[in-house]
């Protein structure tokens, strides 16, 4: 009965303050929405990866790979020699079709039934009703291609449409379906020979897929030639998924930051709700309701409201995830591997996680407010000044707690570990620690402002005086805004520093004046490469104005650690200067690279596997199988977070039989005319029988930076969403604070204060809070940027970089805080100027 009465009383209070309740719930909704959207996006990417793997590998358990693909005749011989094994040769490549990145798989239709690759609805048999065109079409049509329903629909492809890829034109002769529509999105299938022709891989297959038992796999692995390697399909998938882990953790951490800011907001609102009812609570305790009862009421309120808001937050999260997914997929495609994700995958576990995070953080944030409601004597709770006195006493303790957190965070940050989670833990503890220091620092700042400016005008004095005497409210609001604004500064500096470093790196790396890319680029930046001949290269070198040339080819290299991009480099005279050394060999890195059995490795690879110059690395070669190479040096590289190797052409040619060239760097003589030289280079390039593209280093530089900017779009979106939560926080804090003080403002008006003065007071208070938040956000923002650059980035991607502080970042941050606070003060000012004086003066 008593409980029912208490809840009725609470309900009535919240009904009387709908806007406050709405804002609080809106904060939770947005916080939960952001976290859930990131969880859904990450889950969708993982799920899409699993589905596409399912579509690509079917029942295949193992695959045989070679250092440089498997020649057709060797593959055929192996299949013939092992009639008891289920084996399917596969050619796989990525290509751009109508501007969209697709995966082209070449397979042997007569061997597909055992793999259930496109099963159950899409086999390549003639009789299968789900396949609109069967084997007959495959045999009859010229370069026939099948598209999945999802791909055909998305790319608006119709049967009979010509499909231009590479040097050949194919024809869409049919469509297929898989069990999951999403699994086959972005997938085109064709015969092996067509795929080889389209992807410029004539005479070779990428892998042999097999369905093997463990015993068969063990037996087979011992009999394989040294140049071949047997690997489990699941292991390959796990390796690829691990590549994106750091990126996904980064996104999750950014979203948790939004939730942390949301927690400030929830705590703020619940505290206000308790403070506004302090007299009601006091009366309740006077009539005999125990402190635990009041604690229970506040906690139940938090639970109910956060549950409702979190449920709505889940829906918002689903909506945000739709947009976020596109940005995330783009980044994964730019940085890691090709992934076709068009739709979100909702998992009950992901939604439950979002719900638990929302409710859990809200209840946690409300605990202090509930303690506030339950603590102190009944009479003391009635006294408004008692709350402020208590706050004043509490501030130094909060500062102390904050300093302890900061110390702990710093200790964790500098703890010798490569754990990304530990790094983010340290970052979060530092943010929380600084957040706890903010109320004390705000008080000092506002006092200083009061001393300096308080004498200038009565309105200034009243406004600032009121802020310092209401620290229980203002401290929290400033903390919430400062943390959010600092996050935007920290991320801005991190991205800025990263961009600056990439810019410098590109300038150093792109030493040649022009680059010729041979073959088609597949949209991931990697060229399909082409066969050139020495005579053509010699003639290119002899063009008037060309000083010298370098050639490069990027291939997959299987090593004793993982599979990495291997750059096969035939250097020019200036190639050495395109490398920034981070670790050199005592014998001279470049000299060793050019003369010894050695390779160069990029920084992320060195960091991930603790390698340095002098370390040994085993590469899986085409001629001799596993061969050891010495690391001649570690160089800076922002091209791949997974890691990259460089080998000189002559050494590569010794162990591999792949004479193709992917790109050519052309250096122009300084005295030569660039325009006529490039025209001559273009003319010479046009003689090649394969597609080729000539670009100058400036356009490649610009294109690379554009891709860089694209990869950070998702971070920027999350940053602004976090700022949105903070804005609601400061808005709700200011509104609650001003509404609670409506009576004080009415007294001021009754004592001769004009509407104009009132508005000035509120505007000044908002500005003062903005100034405090802006100033206090700067040190935290700088601290965050340092941690993001030197700890999080290194642990996530393996990239080190120097901090660069953009000149405009600090004033921008300050203005952002100021503008947010000023904007948030507009509505309370308008609302207060319309309040009924009499009803406020009457209310007690």
């Amino acid at each position, binding site marked *: 009965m008593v409980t029912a009465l208490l809840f009725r009383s609470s309900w009535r209070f919240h009904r009387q303050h709908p806007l406050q309740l709405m804002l609080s719930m809106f904060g939770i909704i947005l916080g939960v929405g952001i976290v859930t959207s990131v969880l859904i996006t990450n889950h969708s990417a993982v799920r899409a990866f699993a589905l596409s793997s399912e579509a690509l590998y079917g029942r295949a358990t193992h695959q045989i790979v070679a250092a440089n693909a498997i020649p057709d005749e060797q593959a055929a011989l192996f299949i013939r020699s092992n009639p008891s094994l289920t084996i399917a040769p596969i050619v796989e490549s990525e290509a751009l079709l109508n501007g969209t990145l697709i995966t082209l798989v070449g397979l042997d239709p007569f061997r597909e039934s055992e793999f259930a690759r496109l099963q159950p609805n899409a086999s390549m048999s003639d009789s299968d009703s789900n396949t609109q065109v069967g084997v007959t079409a495959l045999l009859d049509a010229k370069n026939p291609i099948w598209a999945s329903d999802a791909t055909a629909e998305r790319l608006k492809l119709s049967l009979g449409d010509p499909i231009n890829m590479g040097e050949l034109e194919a024809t869409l002769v049919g469509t297929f379906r898989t069990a999951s529509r999403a699994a086959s999105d972005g997938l085109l299938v064709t015969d092996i020979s067509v795929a080889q022709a389209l992807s410029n891989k004539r005479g070779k297959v990428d892998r042999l897929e097999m369905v093997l038992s463990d015993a068969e796999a063990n037996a087979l692995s011992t009999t394989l030639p040294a140049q071949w390697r047997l690997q489990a399909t699941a292991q390959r998938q796990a390796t690829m998924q691990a590549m994106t882990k750091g990126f996904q953790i980064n996104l999750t951490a950014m979203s948790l930051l939004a939730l942390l800011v949301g927690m400030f907001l929830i705590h703020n609102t619940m505290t206000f709700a308790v403070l506004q009812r302090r007299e009601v609570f006091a009366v309740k305790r006077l009539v005999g309701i125990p402190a635990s009862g009041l604690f229970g009421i506040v906690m139940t309120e938090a639970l109910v409201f956060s549950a409702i808001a979190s449920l709505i937050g889940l829906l918002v999260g689903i909506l945000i995830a739709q947009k976020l997914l596109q940005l995330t997929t783009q980044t994964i495609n730019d940085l890691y591997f090709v992934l076709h994700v068009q739709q979100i995958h909702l998992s009950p576990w992901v939604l439950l996680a979002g719900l638990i995070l929302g409710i859990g953080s809200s209840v946690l944030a409300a605990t202090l407010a509930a303690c506030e409601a339950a603590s102190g004597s009944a009479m003391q709770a*009635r*006294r*408004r*000044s*008692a709350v*402020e006195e208590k706050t004043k006493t509490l501030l130094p303790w909060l500062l102390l707690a904050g300093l302890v957190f900061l110390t702990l965070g710093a200790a964790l940050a500098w703890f010798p570990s490569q754990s990304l989670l530990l790094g983010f833990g340290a970052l979060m503890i530092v943010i929380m620690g600084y957040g706890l220091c903010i109320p004390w620092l705000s008080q000092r700042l506002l006092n200083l402002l009061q001393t300096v400016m308080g*004498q200038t005008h*009565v309105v200034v*004095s*009243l406004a600032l*005086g*009121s802020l310092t*005497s*209401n620290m229980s409210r203002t401290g929290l609001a400033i903390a919430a805004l400062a943390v959010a604004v600092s996050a935007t500064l920290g991320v801005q500096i991190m991205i800025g520093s990263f961009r600056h470093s990439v810019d410098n790196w590109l300038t150093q790396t792109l030493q040649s004046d022009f680059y010729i890319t041979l073959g088609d680029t597949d949209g991931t930046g990697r060229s399909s490469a082409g066969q050139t001949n020495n005579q053509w290269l010699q003639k290119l070198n002899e063009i008037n104005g060309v000083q010298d040339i370098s050639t490069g080819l990027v291939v997959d290299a299987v090593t004793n650690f993982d599979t990495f991009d291997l750059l096969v480099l035939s250097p020019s005279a200036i190639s050495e200067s395109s490398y920034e050394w981070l670790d050199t060999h005592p014998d001279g890195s470049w000299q060793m690279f050019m003369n010894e059995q050695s390779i160069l490795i990029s920084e992320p690879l060195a960091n991930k596997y603790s390698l340095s110059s002098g370390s040994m690395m085993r590469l899986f070669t085409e001629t001799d199988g596993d061969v050891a190479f010495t690391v001649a040096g570690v160089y800076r590289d922002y091209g791949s977070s997974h890691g990259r190797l460089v080998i000189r052409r002559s050494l590569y040619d010794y162990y591999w039989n792949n004479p193709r060239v992917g790109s050519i760097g052309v250096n122009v003589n300084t005295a030569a005319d660039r325009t006529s030289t490039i025209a001559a280079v273009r003319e010479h390039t046009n003689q090649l029988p394969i597609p080729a593209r000539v670009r100058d280093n400036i356009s490649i530089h610009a294109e690379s930076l554009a891709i860089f900017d694209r990869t950070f779009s998702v971070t920027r979106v999350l940053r602004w969403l976090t700022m949105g939560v903070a804005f609601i926080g400061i808005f709700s804090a200011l509104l609650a604070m001003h509404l609670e003080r409506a*009576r*004080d403002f009415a*007294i*001021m*008006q*009754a*004592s*001769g*204060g*004009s*509407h*104009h*003065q009132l508005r000035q007071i509120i505007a000044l208070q908002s500005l003062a809070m903005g100034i405090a938040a802006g100033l206090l956000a700067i040190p935290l923002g700088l601290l965050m940027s340092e941690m993001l650059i030197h700890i999080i980035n290194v642990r996530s991607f393996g990239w080190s970089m120097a901090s660069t502080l953009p000149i405009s970042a600090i004033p921008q941050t300050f203005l952002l805080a100021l503008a947010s606070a000023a904007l948030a003060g507009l509505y309370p000012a308008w609302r207060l100027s319309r309040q009924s*004086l*009499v009803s406020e*003066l*009457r209310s*007690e």
Partner: protein
Amino acid sequence: MSQPAVEVTGITHRYNTASQRPILNDLSLSLAAGETLALVGASGSGKSTLLNLIGGLEPVQEGYVRVFNETLHDANNALRTELRRSIIGFVYQAFNLIPTLSVVDNIRLPLALAGVHKTEQDKRINRLLDTVGLTDKKNAFPDVLSGGEQQRVAIARAVVHQPALLLADEPTGNLDASTGQQVLNLLQSLVAEHNTTLLMVTHSLKVANCADRILAMNDGQLVEMNDNTDSINTW
């Protein structure tokens, strides 16, 4: 004959809907400068509403209100604010002190809002603190003061800008008999000192008897006083 300090003519006032019975119904009243008038009546009879209209806290709906030659019935918000700042002071039953401002700052508020120089502010405040006997508590916050002390602060705040008209709504309503008497004495002495016109709403006969004139209100109209008025009690 000199111009009246307060002149109310035919005012009618309603809360909410037009169909509701008016809280003030065609009421007229005149108050001479320096006069003390006590307004008595049952709860809901419209006493406080009349006070609020004269004080410019609410706009006049029908009728005319003139305070020291300033018309309030057609005054905009800014003018009403200006009048409160210059010639009107308020004392409330619930004291209405700002809890986060100290005693001295509460008293300073009207002077600060009116832009009075700091030296002048301090001079007037110190004198008043001495008069109300709260010099030793000038830095205390309102909620640590007793009811009587809080009302003395409220009175000091109401008169610190030396208003010509003081409006007091149940000034002793929240106080015990002895404290109420002290507050009343203080009010009277301050009013007398500056020849301030005082319009006071009260339920108390003792308080009302201190006034030069007593008027009773019933159903939004002024009525003849009789000794059996139920609403008047004693303390």
